């Protein structure tokens, strides 16, 4: 009797786990299909390629070109990654290979706190500190700007993604066995040479995936960026230009202006593009990792 009871419990539990896993696997597809159906109206009118590459955004004339938004999002998030990647890598190396283990123990909760700060707060900080700073910086280079620019968005984002990238990097660097460093050191390498030629090489795929993760997060981040980036629809020509990233488009306009036909559909389309690009980033970094692991 007892056995049967346990047996059923076991079975019930594993069924539940299977169901949960199933839901998680199906979720992205449901999202994509839902967004696709919602934006179907627009698909009927214009070709997908045209929509993506067209620069004209005039909803009142039924012209929906997504290029300015996509390009702005790429600018902001790639710039953010370029700014934070070296900082994260050096910090992670310092914490795992140079600092006393006590320092790492203190740092870890600090990193978690950074990760837990709501984006609005980053946005406010951006407005109070980063925007005026960028305005001054622009003036220094002889460019007139309010400070609400691509660069401000990237700076705020770069700080926001630091904890995520840093956590993954620390995890990865810690899995590398000490003996590998010892091997390199006993061949006469210095500590820095060991890190450069052995540790980083060994961790390379992991480092790439950490950066990929950071990029995806940056690309999808909404509130903090839209607070400092200016929200002007145009293709940015430089980092001191204002821009209008894709997530901001959705957040600023959804639920309003629905009097314009197809606007709703266009915003759904924006969401679809956002989702697809983030998935592309992820898949690309994963495929890259897969290829590297195969040839290692």
């Amino acid at each position, binding site marked *: 009797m007892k056995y049967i009871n346990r047996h059923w419990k076991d079975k019930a539990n594993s069924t539940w786990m299977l169901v949960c896993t199933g839901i998680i696997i199906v979720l992205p597809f449901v999202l994509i299909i839902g967004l696709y159906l919602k934006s179907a109206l627009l698909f009927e009118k214009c070709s997908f390629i045209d929509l993506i590459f067209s620069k004209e955004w005039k909803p009142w004339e039924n012209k929906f070109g997504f290029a300015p938004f996509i390009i702005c999002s790429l600018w902001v998030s790639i710039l953010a990654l370029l700014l934070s990647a070296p900082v994260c890598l050096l910090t992670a190396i310092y914490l795992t290979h140079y600092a*006393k*283990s006590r320092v790492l123990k203190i740092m870890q909760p600090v990193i978690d706190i950074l990760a837990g700060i709501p984006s609005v707060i980053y946005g406010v900080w951006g407005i109070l500190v980063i925007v005026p700073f960028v305005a001054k910086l622009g003036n220094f280079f002889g460019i007139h700007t309010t400070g609400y620019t691509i660069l401000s968005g990237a700076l705020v984002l770069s700080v926001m993604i630091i904890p995520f990238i840093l956590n993954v990097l620390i995890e990865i660097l810690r899995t590398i*066995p*000490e*003996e*590998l*460093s*010892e*091997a*390199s*050191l*006993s*061949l*006469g*390498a*210095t500590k820095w*040479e060991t890190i450069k*030629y*052995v540790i980083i*090489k*060994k961790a390379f795929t992991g480092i790439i995936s950490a950066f990929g993760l950071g990029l995806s997060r940056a690309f999808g981040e909404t509130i903090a960026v839209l607070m400092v980036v200016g929200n002007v629809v145009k293709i940015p020509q430089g980092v001191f230009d204002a821009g209008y990233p894709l997530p901001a488009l959705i957040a600023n306009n959804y639920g309003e202006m629905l009097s314009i036909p197809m606007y709703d559909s266009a915003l759904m389309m924006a969401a679809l593009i956002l989702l697809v690009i983030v998935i592309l980033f992820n898949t690309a970094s994963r495929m890259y990792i897969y290829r590297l692991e195969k*040839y*290692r």
Partner: protein
Amino acid sequence: MEPSGKIKIQNLNLFIGKQQILKNINAEIPENKITVILGPSGCGKTTLLKTLNRLTDLYENIKISGTVEMGNEDILHTKTDITKIRRKMGLVSQRPYPLPMSIYGNIAYGLKISGHTKKQFLDEKVEYYLKVTHLWEEVKDRLKQPASALSVGQQQRLCLARGLAVDPEIILADEPASALDPVSSMAIEELFTELKSWYTIVVVTHILRQAKRIADHVIFMYLGEVIEQGPAGEFFENPKMEKTKAYIKGAFN
């Protein structure tokens, strides 16, 4: 002929935090012989070995006193670049840890680090040391392949070859056969026996039979202390200390 001491360890004490790991160690490692550091698990064999090439620098909260002399130099308090001293000692660890590079790259690494870049020179060295470790025939057609693709036994010999390539005087091996199958394990032991004409070899082990097979000289440790040391024949036939006798009988392991 009395063997000349290649390394002299005097009054070596080592603490990690408050724990004393090595207790007043005095020992001598003779040149061109295989010295086996023998003792039960946790007695400080690995720590002693790492002190010899100062890998103990990596430990936190470590305190060392005493001297470890090689030539006329105190390794523990040397003013010379520590990388120079480490290069004089090839390290073979408990499990093979090939560097994340090709077979060729693993052996060329130490040479490149010390400034050799000529391809012909590197090619020659790689071939030579792969031959010394009897790996050449097995890997000559796949030198550019990742070292991690080799079997564990092959990897261990590769790690030895990589250590030899920087032209050390001493080989330090920490239970080099513990992760290997009996055949690979014998191959390593035979290699050491061949190599001792050119190198001073220190092997850590807690396998008594292995020690008997390869040792010329034995240092027996127990709980951080050196209990007894001497030529292998005497040590095994005629141990002086009670602890040694018990250990050789297999009383504790």
